[in-house]
């Protein structure tokens, strides 16, 4: 019963956060200093009268309640509103790209987990953190995603999955290495090692079950890392996903599209955060 109440509380909190994200993003965009300016106003092909009309139209639709009503109206109609740039419902733009982005993220995260887990199992077995394992991870985290993607493109080797995988794996490796190192120092494991229990058996019977509860937190970390790398990777590799759509929308001031994508990202992160908390903590939510 307590778990159900906790789950309901978590769901309510997630809903409130998503609603606040909608409100906050709309306010942020509305009060950004250049919200009322339109690229078409600077186009000399538009007559002075047309430019004044554009400006007046922007003023009319600029009140916060109007913006929120339009936004929520778009959501209730199920189409997320109308794209300024393409003049089509935002949903039509998002749906085909969702599959591309989802596929990229899923493959990268799974590969990164496998890579990070294998590497961290080896690295954590040593007595002290070795530079051999940690230097590549530090180097990968120090290279901006955009630069890593460009270098891959220049070298004509690797693709978006490789860049995302390396980035996520480097972050996950640091997280897993810390947890595993702590696990290896547990007194019962030290005794088991002293008694000659094989490393393979220790990993299978003790280490992996020990870290299982942390894997959900790892999922959140991976999703957040992947989302933050999504835009540069998709833009540089010309991958028609949500990141590229968001970048196009940002360059062309297509705010309905940008807001809808931001909402989707917020929902993904919030839901991942909710799932990553063990059910025991839902009771105290």
């Amino acid at each position, binding site marked *: 019963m307590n778990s159900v109440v906790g789950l309901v509380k978590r769901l309510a909190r997630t809903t409130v956060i998503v609603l606040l*994200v909608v409100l906050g993003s709309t306010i942020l*965009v509305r009060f950004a200093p250049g*919200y009322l300016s339109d690229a078409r106003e600077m186009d000399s092909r538009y007559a002075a009268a047309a430019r004044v009309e554009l400006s007046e139209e922007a003023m009319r639709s600029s009140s916060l309640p109007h913006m929120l009503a339009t936004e929520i109206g778009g959501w209730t109609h199920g189409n997320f509103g109308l794209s300024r740039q393409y003049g089509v419902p935002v949903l039509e733009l998002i749906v085909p790209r969702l599959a591309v982005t989802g596929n990229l993220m899923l493959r990268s995260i799974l590969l990164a987990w496998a890579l990070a887990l294998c590497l961290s199992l080896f690295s954590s077995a040593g007595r002290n953190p070795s530079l051999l394992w940690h230097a590549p991870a530090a180097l990968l985290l120090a*290279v*901006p995603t*955009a*630069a890593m993607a460009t270098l891959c493109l220049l070298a004509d080797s690797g693709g978006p999955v490789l860049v995302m995988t390396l980035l996520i794996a480097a972050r996950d490796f640091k997280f897993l290495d810390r947890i595993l190192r702590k696990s290896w120092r547990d007194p019962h494991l030290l005794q088991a090692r002293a008694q000659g229990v094989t490393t393979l058996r220790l990993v299978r019977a003790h280490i992996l079950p020990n870290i299982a509860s942390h894997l959900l937190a790892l999922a959140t970390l991976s999703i957040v890392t992947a989302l*933050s790398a999504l835009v540069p990777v998709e833009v540089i590799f010309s991958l028609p996903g949500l990141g590229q759509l968001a970048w196009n929308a940002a*360059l062309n001031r297509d705010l309905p599209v940008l807001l809808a994508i931001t909402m989707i*990202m917020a929902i993904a992160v919030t839901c991942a955060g909710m799932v990553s908390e063990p059910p025991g903590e839902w009771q105290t939510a």
Partner: protein
Amino acid sequence: MRSRRIAAWLLLGLVLIALAVIAAPGSSYSQQDRALPLAGASSHHPAGTDALGRDRMVRVAAAFLLSLAGAIAASAATTAAAAGVGTLAAFSPAALGSLAMLVCDVFLALPWLFLLMMVRSALPLTTSPVHSAEVTFLVLAALGWPACARAVYRGTQGLRNAEWMLQARAGGLRSPQIVRYVLPNLLPLLLPQFLICIPAFVIAEANLGALGLGIGEPLPSWGGMLLELDNSAMLLRTPWVYLPIALLIVVLLLLEALAVEV
């Protein structure tokens, strides 16, 4: 501890070299040498020139200083904001503290790059380069505080239940007086947060610039210079195009080394 000291000295050395390059007579990050676009290294231009004939060495030095100064200022602002919000939330009634943490969760639910893109895309079309640099780092500072505020909130709550705190309250010290004693105790928490934010902001600015949404030209920035890597014709003509990315990686590794082990 030793690696941190070495990293600090190396960073200081790089800053001094960059300052010397900028302060050298005749050096300008925006002056174009129309006769020498995409030139290789020479006595006039030790690291060659970019596509517009601007000295690459001066631009890299200016980008390094601008990015470092902006990231340090933004990190200081974000740490101060986090310290303020976290401490006040911990000393406020429980409902107010929960509300403050809910606001943090709202910010944390949004990936940085999307928020940055959203705000940058809504800036006026006529934004000046200096203004674009200010806004970029201001937005970074405005978005970076929630994670740190959460950590400060947890840390302050721990301090609230410490024995010396209970004694101070029992002794009649008021909350504003207590906060004065809390802040020095939070330094071990705030200093790593401050140092961690600096490389994160440098990377965020570079990524944003590489997408064409960062600091405006002709001001030099890491992101703007990474855009040069897209031009394969330029890459074939001079290997000096790789100087910005190489230096950026070195700087980020030094900043990371500085943040580790604090």
